Each structure stands twice: as structure tokens, then as C-alpha cells.
């Protein structure tokens, strides 16, 4: 019984991590529908930045969010302005190729700069746990869980309550009409991409205390984030959170009861099955949201 509860707790904590790493993608891909295959590479950049800030300047990873998030905001705006904007009117496929190209370029740049070494940092709380009866809860993972919940709620409120949020939703719904209504679409895309990247940066900084970074780490995160966002339903913040938790739990249970080597296979099979039945994702709002690509 104890072990069962531990499996559930570990799954939920892992789900929190997955939700966290897909927050940025939820905004960029889920809301504004820019397919960004370089998502994981932005995360990798954030993790390296956090690593060097800790290693050279001894800045705590949690504190370094104050530097990493603005830095990634600028990077994100740069990517949008100089890479995506120039090909904005070409097909969605073209944009996929461009971000895939960016992903390969960033990965190889990192390989050249940092070599293929795995880098970890050791903070006082890296392996800290909260113990409730016989159940142990990893502190940095709990923090990640909390941030995932907080950031997604914040994003939800932003989209629902603010003018910028409303504009974002309008652009997602129909770019041309939004422009006709006086929304400065280009600028909005800049802000959105910047914000999404900053959120990804925060995730990177929060993940580093208990994981590691290496130049090709991004691919793993990109795949996970896409699965979480699509499963949860595009543009649905609660969906992204629950989607993350769902995959975390599936992974934890299949790892424990089936085999750790098969857990990825198990959640991908479930992922495919769910999309067959509900193409709009578990919590998708309905028709039309399953469509991928720019309008």
C-alpha cells in the first residue's frame, strides 16, 4: 500500500514537471499556433544559462530565474522577428522546417560550445525530501509542481482577463480578421513568442537542480511538451496541467507495474488511442481546435 501511494505521488510529481516544461509551448503552440520544434532547445539554453550562473557566479538556480526569464524573452523575440516573421506568409510546413532547422543549429552550436558532457549542479535542496509517514516527496520537484500550477493559472487569467490575452485569442482564432480589427499582429506574435520562451526559461531553471543538461537534451523535452499540450487540448491551460499529470501517472504506473524500459511506449500508445477517440485532446474545447498550423 505504501509503495502504491509512493507510485502515485512520484507520478504526480513527475506530471508536475511535464506540465511545467510544456507551459511555454502551451502559449506558443496551443494558443497562437506557431509550431516551435526548437522548444526543447530554448529550454536547453535556459538550463545552460542557469548552470553557468550557478557555476561561475554562484547564483542559486531559483534566484537566477530573474536573469534567465528576461534573457529568454529576448531570445524568443529574436527568433520570432528574424526567423519566423520573414517567412510568415509561407505554408505551415515551411515554418516547421525552419524551427526544425533552428533546433538542429542550436543543438550543434551547444555541442561545439559545451561539448557533449552532462552537467549537473548540486544545491543544498537537490536531493531534499519532505517525508509524510513513509512517503517521500522530492522538494525541488514539489517546487516545479507548484510553479507549473501557478504559471498555468497565471496564463489562464492573462488570456481571460487582460486585453493582451484577448488579442492573443483573437489572433489565434483568425489572424486576418484580428488585423482588420486593429490588432497589431506582428507585435503580438513578438510578445507571445517572447513570453512563451521566458516561461520555458523559468522551467529550465527550475528543472536543473534535480536533472542535468547536455546539448541534445532538448529533443526529449520537445517531444514530451508536444504530447502534453496536444493531449490536454490546444489552448487549454487546465488541460495542459492535467495532461502533464496524466502522462506522469501513466509513466509511473507502467514503469512500476510493467517495466521502466517500456513506459515511453505505454504512454505513446495511450496517447494515440486518446487522439483516435478525441482528436481535440482530453480537454479540447471542441471542433476546430485540433487543427494544427497557422491560420
Amino acid at each position, binding site marked *: 500500500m505504501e509503495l502504491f501511494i509512493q507510485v502515485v505521488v512520484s507520478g504526480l510529481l513527475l506530471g508536475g514537471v511535464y506540465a511545467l516544461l510544456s507551459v511555454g509551448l502551451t502559449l506558443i503552440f496551443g494558443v497562437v499556433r506557431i509550431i516551435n520544434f526548437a522548444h526543447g532547445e530554448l529550454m536547453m539554453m535556459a538550463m545552460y544559462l542557469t548552470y553557468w550562473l550557478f557555476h561561475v557566479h554562484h547564483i542559486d538556480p531559483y534566484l537566477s530565474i530573474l536573469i534567465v526569464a528576461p534573457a529568454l524573452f529576448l531570445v524568443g523575440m529574436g527568433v520570432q522577428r528574424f526567423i519566423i516573421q520573414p517567412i510568415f506568409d509561407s505554408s505551415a510546413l515551411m515554418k516547421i522546417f525552419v524551427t526544425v532547422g533552428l533546433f538542429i543549429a542550436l543543438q550543434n552550436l551547444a555541442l561545439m560550445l559545451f561539448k557533449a558532457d552532462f552537467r549537473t549542479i548540486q544545491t543544498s535542496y537537490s536531493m531534499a525530501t519532505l517525508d509524510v509517514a513513509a512517503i517521500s516527496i522530492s522538494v525541488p520537484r514539489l517546487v516545479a509542481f507548484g510553479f507549473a500550477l501557478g504559471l498555468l493559472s497565471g496564463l489562464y487569467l492573462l488570456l481571460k482577463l487582460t486585453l493582451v490575452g484577448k488579442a492573443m485569442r483573437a489572433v489565434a482564432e483568425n489572424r486576418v480578421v484580428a488585423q482588420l480589427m486593429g490588432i497589431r499582429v506582428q507585435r503580438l506574435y513578438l510578445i507571445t513568442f517572447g513570453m512563451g520562451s521566458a516561461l520555458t526559461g523559468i522551467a529550465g531553471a527550475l528543472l536543473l537542480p534535480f536533472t*542535468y543538461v547536455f546539448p541534445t537534451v532538448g529533443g526529449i523535452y520537445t517531444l514530451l511538451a508536444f504530447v502534453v499540450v496536444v493531449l490536454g487540448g490546444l489552448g487549454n491551460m487546465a488541460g495542459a496541467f492535467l495532461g502533464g499529470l496524466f502522462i506522469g501517472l501513466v509513466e509511473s504506473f507502467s514503469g512500476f507495474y510493467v517495466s521502466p524500459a517500456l513506459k515511453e511506449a505505454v504512454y505513446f500508445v495511450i496517447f494515440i488511442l486518446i487522439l483516435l477517440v478525441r482528436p481535440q485532446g482530453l480537454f479540447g474545447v471542441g471542433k476546430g481546435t485540433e487543427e494544427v498550423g497557422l491560420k
Partner: protein
Amino acid sequence: MMKRCSVLGMIIGLLLISGFVEMALSQPVRIGALYPVSGSLALLGDESWRGAEIARVMKNQKGGVAGKQVEFVKVDIPDVSAAKSEAERLINREGLKLLTGTYSSSLCLAASEVAARAGIIYFEQGGIADQITARGYKTLLRSCPKAQYFSRSQIQFARDFVAPKIGKKPNEIRVALVHEDSAYGSSISKNVEAEAKTGGVQLVSVIPYNKDAVDLSSVILKLKNDKPDVVIGVSYANDAILLGRQAKELRLDIKAFIGTGGGHSLTSFQQALGTAAEGVLNVDFTQFEVNTKFTPGLKEFVEMYRKMFNEPPRSGHSLANFSGTNILFDLLEKTGGNMEAGKFRQTAAAVEQKSGSTASGWGVKFDDSGQNIFADTFIMQWRGGKLVTVYPEGPAVMTPLLEAPFSK
């Protein structure tokens, strides 16, 4: 006129002959040395090469092999196709009669196949894949331990050291295996299963996992469920760290954890885990924290290494190749410099030197497959931030400490 010509011819002839004699006398023993010194295998490939080079320099200082100086024709083999083509070039163009190397098993498999086809001796010093000596080549010799020996040491340690310490009979001790599921981990897992069977210990669980996994908590929880006394791990760098961290977080309660080279031997593992790495065991090639009485020549090797490369050795790979190259030179001495494959293998088969007779603590005895069956692997333990040899007694500098790993 005629006379003058013939005198001149005679002088020229004499000069030529004396030149040939001179050349024949001082002709060095030429050996092809194939190592990856660029590309992804470069670091440890180069480290391996350094060990061989030190052995050569030291040998030449003492007068060389069979009265001749030894020369390496060094080639870089960053990948399998280079290994093939360079081995061909060394044999066909350079006319070499003996090749050595290679650090990486896959490179060795490719290069030694070329040598086998040409009927030339290939002397492997670093590749550990069991397959290398399982192909039945009569031209192959391997000085270093093969993969199977790593698993054998781990099972022996669990049965002969851990079991009595915790008051269990050898057949009562519970061993679990956790391995990453690429070719590296999967091949070792087969060996562990086989060795557990022959060693008569219970293997209570075999848990494969993906080395790129973001989370390994389910591996640890499975272990908690199966309650092993000893866990054998096969990991790369990052997954070894993740596994260690989550073992600590989830309070895995075991008596001993034994890694299999790989991630558990790296300083990055110790740095990332800090005190939690304390007590983790690892089986590997001989390292430098070892009883020097059991490793004659180790001190001289380390001194020479510092002198030649201005830094301490970067890993045990140099030592393995230093020992291997010395074994090779001893064999050449015995054949009088003759490199003909049949004669060389025959000479090698007759040699028997006990464990503890080389700088790496290995003995020398080649079996029919060409494997040095006295190439032992030792168990090391992280103690005070250092990987120290603890088992068996001969090379050990400390006694193994059985305290729960990943607990501090």
C-alpha cells in the same frame, strides 16, 4: 679505364652491402598502433594510446625488444570505416606484421577482422566486448579483461563478501540488476544472468530502463518492492546520477550497489551526488588507488606519465594499455622479434604469469580464444570522494565498507 671502373664498382658495392647490413641491424621493430584520437572517442582513445607509448619509450630506453628499438606506426581511427581502411593500409602498404589498439570494442571488431583475413596478429588492449574473442580467430590476442569478467567479479563479491557479512548463505543473498537498455547494458545483463546462475545466487529482478529517461523513480520503487541486498547497475553518465539521486530521495534500502564501469566510475558522478555517492561500489579496469605491491611497475608508470605529458593520468585506460603493451613486448622478446601469427600465438599460449605480476595487477595466460584469462577486474568503492580498490584482497588498499549507499 676498365680497372678503375671495377674498383669504383667494388667500392660502391661494398658501401651498398655495408649499408644494407647496417640497416638490417638497426631496423626497428615496427608495430601498427590503432587508436581513436579524434572524434567522440578521442579522450579515452588518446589516454589509451598514451599508456602504450609510455611502455614503448621505457622499453626502448632499456634497449628495446630482441635488441631492436620499437617503433609505433600510429594511426587515428575515429570510426569503424577508418578502422577498416587504416588496418588495410598498414598491412598492405606499410607491410606491418603486427597491429595493436584499440580502446573501443566496435573499432577493434572491424580492425581485427582485417588483420585476421591477412593472417596477421591483432593484439587488443582495451575493447572488452565478449564477441571480440568469440569469433574463433587464430590471429587475435586480448590482454585486457572481457565484459564477462566484470559480471563475474560482481557476483563473486555479492556471494563471497556481502553474504557472510550480513549473515546469509550464498544462495540466500538477493541480487537485483538495473541496466540501461541499449546494446551496452543489454549485453552486460545477459552476462550477469549467466554468472548469477553459475555462481548460485538468486537474481530477484532484472530492471531495464531507457538512459534518456527524465525520471527513474519507477526503477527505484520496483527495487523497493523486490527488496534485494545487492544491486548491480549498468549506467551511462547521466542516468547513473539520476538513479543515485532518486535512490536517495526514495530512501532505497540496500546493502551494496555495484556499478559496471561506465557512469559510476566518473568523477562527475561523485561531484553530482556528493556524500550520497559514498560507499557506492564499482567494478572496472585497474585504477590508481591500488596496492602497489600487487601492481609492480605502477609507480614508475605514473612518474613517466607525468614526465611525458605534464599531468597525472586521466583514467585507468592508460594503465591497461601500458600493461598490455608490456605483455606484447615480452611475447615479442620470447619469439625473438618474430611476428608470424602461428609462432606468436604458440609462444603466447605457453606463457603463464600469476595475477599481480604486471603494473595493472593482471597475470598472463592466454586461452584458445586468445583471451588473457588472468586479466582480472577489481572492485572499487567511493570513499572520501575517491574511487579506492577494495576487493579482492591482493590489490585492495582498504576493506570494503558495507553501509547503505545513497543514504548520506
